[in-house]
């Protein structure tokens, strides 16, 4: 069961939520004006979104919604405007990209700002975790895409030694980077970045080289990888979704340009965001006209449409429906599961609070599945007892027992002899006494 979650840049539209299979609309979460890439689902527990703010306001804003309530539950105000945010799949960290080019990393459970580092010369536009979540990839307005090793970021010693913090810095884009995605393959994964310079570039994570650069007819604002990475889909400002070849046949004869296989189009306005549902094998696109379209990528047909708002949709997420979430009694069940929302995110790194720095909050597994048969021990007890019994009855034991008994017997015999001897002595003594007494009596 998958849910589609969409947000838009105008506040009164809120966050829409639909069941992808049935198409039924679920709860609508209120008052969210998110920037592009500013919506994240944190570990399936709650939704978080950064907010568009007036340029005059001094701080940024990140809001949390729990699944069960439409109102904003937790508000945080980071030190500057945060646009893109991302969370790792376990939901332990939220990273946010600032207007100044800084990247902020918060621990969700405690709200502590663990790290903040200067990543780009201009505002960060998108953030994405690598497959194993040990790397972070950021794109910026300065056209730069950088790959960060989180381990390195946290290692104060190494990061002082190193000349730069990043693992790779890709600088071939000439204009603002609009979207970055990465695929499977661990250290050999590819990174696809889209930019306002109308190109999408494919990078190799292992070598750091540019593998392919694809020129599109118009600016690409959103990219999503096909799960098997044969192709990727690129949503353009012209309204088309282009299918570009990665590991698929493409002919140079395509009328769109090199490597572009085909396109999906609904004569809509600019495509602003894309998502892919692996379960249903469906492509989702959000458009400036406020619609979320669901495509079947095989046939290029639209199979469903969700109307979100009058304004542009700019984020779509496809999330698995949390198993405890049923909208009828979700309040009770979420409380039972202990998923109260965590505290707001800190504004500054706070090195002085020793007590907190020492600790970390973890979720232990709530229950472990053990095969039930392994738990029963009656028959084990029987077996053990029998083994004991048999060990006592074994031939070696019997032999030893016989030895012992023989020994005992010998000792007893000896004892008997001794007693006998003593008895004899005593007997003799008594007789002698008696006889002596008699003799004395007689002599008297």
């Amino acid at each position, binding site marked *: 069961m998958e849910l589609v979650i969409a947000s838009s840049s105008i506040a009164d539209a809120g966050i829409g939520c639909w069941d992808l299979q049935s198409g039924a609309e679920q709860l609508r979460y209120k008052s969210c004006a998110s920037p592009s890439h500013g919506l994240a689902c944190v570990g399936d527990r709650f939704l978080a979104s950064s907010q568009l703010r007036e340029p005059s306001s001094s701080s940024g804003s990140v809001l949390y919604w729990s699944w069960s309530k439409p109102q904003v539950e937790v508000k945080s105000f980071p030190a500057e405007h945060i646009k893109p945010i991302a969370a790792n799949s376990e939901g332990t960290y939220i990273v946010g990209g600032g207007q100044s080019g800084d990247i902020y990393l918060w621990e969700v459970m405690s709200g502590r700002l663990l790290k903040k580092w200067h990543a780009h010369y201009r505002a960060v536009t998108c953030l994405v975790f690598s497959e194993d979540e040990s790397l972070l990839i950021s794109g910026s307005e300065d056209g730069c895409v950088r790959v960060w090793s989180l381990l390195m970021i946290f290692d104060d010693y190494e990061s002082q030694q190193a000349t730069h913090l990043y693992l790779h810095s890709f600088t071939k884009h000439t204009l603002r980077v609009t979207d970055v995605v990465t695929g499977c393959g661990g*250290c050999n994964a590819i990174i696809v970045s889209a930019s306002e310079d109308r190109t999408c570039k494919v990078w190799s994570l292992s070598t750091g080289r540019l593998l392919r650069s694809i020129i599109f007819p118009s600016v690409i604002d959103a990219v999503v990888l096909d799960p098997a990475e044969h192709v990727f889909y690129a949503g353009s400002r012209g309204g088309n979704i282009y299918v570009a070849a990665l590991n698929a046949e493409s002919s140079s004869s395509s009328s769109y340009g090199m490597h572009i296989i085909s396109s999906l189009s609904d004569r809509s306005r600019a495509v602003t965001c894309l998502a892919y549902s692996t379960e249903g094998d469906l492509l989702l696109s959000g458009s400036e006209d406020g619609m979320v379209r669901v495509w079947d990528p*095989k046939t290029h047909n639209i199979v469903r449409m969700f109307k979100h708002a009058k304004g542009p949709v700019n984020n779509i997420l496809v999330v698995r429906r949390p198993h405890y979430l049923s909208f009828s009694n979700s309040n009770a069940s979420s409380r039972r599961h202990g998923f109260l929302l965590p505290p707001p995110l800190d504004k500054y790194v706070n090195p002085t609070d020793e007590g907190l720095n020492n600790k970390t909050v973890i979720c232990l597994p709530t229950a472990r599945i053990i095969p039930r048969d392994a738990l029963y021990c009656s028959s084990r007890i029987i077996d053990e007892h029998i083994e004991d019994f048999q060990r006592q009855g074994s031939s070696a034991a019997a032999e030893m027992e016989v030895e012992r008994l023989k020994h005992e017997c010998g000792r007893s015999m000896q004892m008997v002899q001794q007693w006998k001897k003593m008895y004899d002595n005593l007997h003799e003594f008594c007789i002698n006494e008696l006889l002596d007494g008699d003799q004395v009596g007689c002599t008297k």
Partner: protein
Amino acid sequence: MSVLDNLKNMYDVKLKPRMLRTLIREQFPDENHPGRLPSELTKLISLLRTHKLLSESFDDSVDKKLAESWKSAVDEWVHAVLSLVSSNMFQSNKCWTGICLLGVTFQECAVHRFLASFSVWFNNIYSHIQPPAESQFVKVASLNTMSDLFSRLDGLPNAKRDGSSLASKLIQPLLKLINEDDSEAVWEGAVHLLCTILTYFPASIHRYHDNAEAAIVSKLISGSCSVNMMKKLAYCLALLPKSKGDDDSWCLMMQKILLLINVHLNDFFQGFEEETKGSEAVRALVPPGKDPPPPLGGHTLLGEALDKATKQLPISTISLLILSCCMMLTSPYPVQVTVPIVPLLALVHRVIMVDGSVPRASLPFMTGMQQEFVCSELPLLHLYSLELLTAIIEGTRSQLLPHAAYIVRLVKQYFKRCALPELRIKLYSVTKSMVVSMGVGMALYLGQEVVDNASVDLNPVGDDNGFTASIPNLKAASLAVMQSSHRKRKHSSTGSFEQQNDKIGFEVEALKNRQQSPIALKIAAIEAIEVLLTVGGGLRSESWRPAVDFLLISLATDCCKERWGNEGKGTSAPSGPAVTLADLQLSALRALLASLLSPSRGRPPYLARAFELFRRGKQQAGTKLAAFCAHALLTLEVLIHPRGLPMERFPASTYNSLDKVNNRFPENVYSGGQKHNTQGPPDSDDDDDLYHKWVGNDNIGEASALSPSKKTKDIPFETWTGNLSMAGSSGTKILEGSKEQLVMGMRSNEDEVVVESQQFQESIGQFQEHVTDDLKGPILGTKRTVPDGGLDNKEHEVASTEDFLTDKQDGLTNVGGKVAGASSSDKGKSSVFDLDDDSSMDSFPDIVNGDPDSDVEELG
């Protein structure tokens, strides 16, 4: 009875009641046979199990009478068992049998029967737990049977409350048993039952939490039990916070245990570490200005216990307390908890940094006896600390990130000091779990370290076991034994071989006196390398990768030679070592597979030899090794026949996949020797570099990125001819230069089942509109001249596309039968281009121009 007629077969339901009755009649200890041998019980139980005699499960088709008969048979069974249980005290053997069989009944009987009578059964057993005069083995059996009762109860949702109330009745007698009984078997049973209750009905212990803690801890620190018993106690202590089930009690327990450990380590390590370390550790646990928690197990208890044992806990107790921490970190808990991560890591650090050496300053105060004692206990303590480290990694998962660098340094430091095989094995497993849980980033950090250490541990110097020293040292390199090294020299273009040779040679010098490492250690080292290759073999691994690849192939060759070379030797050896040698072979082959598959810059250099090994391994039929080798061969097949499969999902390629095969077939004849290549191109020539592959595709405008060979380069040509012929046959008139577009559009429509004509019209209109839009796009774009590196390319490209399309129009008419001929001559061309694009990247646009043009020339 009407069910007395013949049985159908051994699955017949009728069999079951009859068999059960026979069992009761003949196998049961009764008045006539009071002391039946318990060994008959095993037979009885296995019969019950295999035939599911107590399950009373049948489908609806079963006759009602039969069901009744079965039910009454089970009733009889239960009655017989209960009468055994309640037999008087002086027949404890019968009583014991009854209790055990009741336990089996709990497990086997039907749900409704269990629900109906579990409280009666509970009381039956309960009466045997309390009286002091009961014989010991009856007590043990009743404790265990009780535990089975609760295990079964947990699976049944409606009985939760009853179970809880029953459990709370038990707690006090249990604690009394732990405190007062003097037999270890009874303690063990009581602790086991306590653990079961803690797991399934934790709330029932809530009231007795402190008493339970005191009872367990007093047993634990008395040090009077066997190791197994101590482990059970440690586990029980770890489960105890569940009885309250909140964050605070978990943290308090953790804090108490850590405090106890650290305080006692202060005494134990006195003189072996800096004085300040202990107080630092305590301060980290109890922040200044806060009250320390009450000591573990309560005040009075600890004082008493320590007085007895000369104020010093036995070291084994400290180890077990550490084990308790491990279990707390890894066993389930209902709510999220706050882990004192820094003190935990500090504890690990503190313990493993003490190696028994005495700093000069405290030398005068140290007696030889004391040092000897500490040194004798240290390995076990180290082992448990590493266990704790593993548990921390497992428990905190991604939350560990801020501390990961600290752990890495810890591990690196310890690798330098650690020499005992058991400890090194543990350390390798720690590195493995670190790399797996923290991914590529961790592999970057630990790679070199793991490789260095593993190659030392795998070095077969001074081996008298018949392993030939196949890792080249300085002398051996000159010998002809090294077929492998020759091959390596031929292939390697860099000086890596020489470097590696030097390096290993140096290590050989340094480690002349080192003993051959045991097989278990070798396996651990190989597994660590395997994990490293799996996770991070392709990223920044240039410094160690060639050496590791070589190490693994020579290792695999080596340890497989031994067994397969002389089969007789393997069988004559005692079974123990032969098994471990097989394990070594398996892990070596696994690592070899990882080294072949892990992404790298070049083709795997030892592919051929590896194939040979796997093929030979596969012949060891029936073994795990053979199964793995079969898997490896399948996996590697992709390496030698890279697959450029047509896309199923995209109309443009689906439609002519058939043509393609036909067209290609004659070519295969020319390329002699490649037999399996109807789908994928053969394992051809020189360069497998991914980069060239991608760019190479750019040049030819070609399809499958995985197949850089000559043949697939024909695809674009065929593809578009296919497309055009499709268009031609449908006979649609289309705008010039947009043919392909429309064809694709129409295909997508073909997938729909019914297209109404009106819609169809519309869609054509729509497509045309789009075509013009889309064509305008790129042209405008190039005129705007984006200041990009690829600018030149772009202009060329657009131009060429246009050419291309018009050319195609002309060429279309006489494509016909010439396809085969054209493509074969095209093949010659494209191989020339192949050379070009490898050498010069900049000529990219020229090639794009060249390709279609040349095609057209040929066609025209």
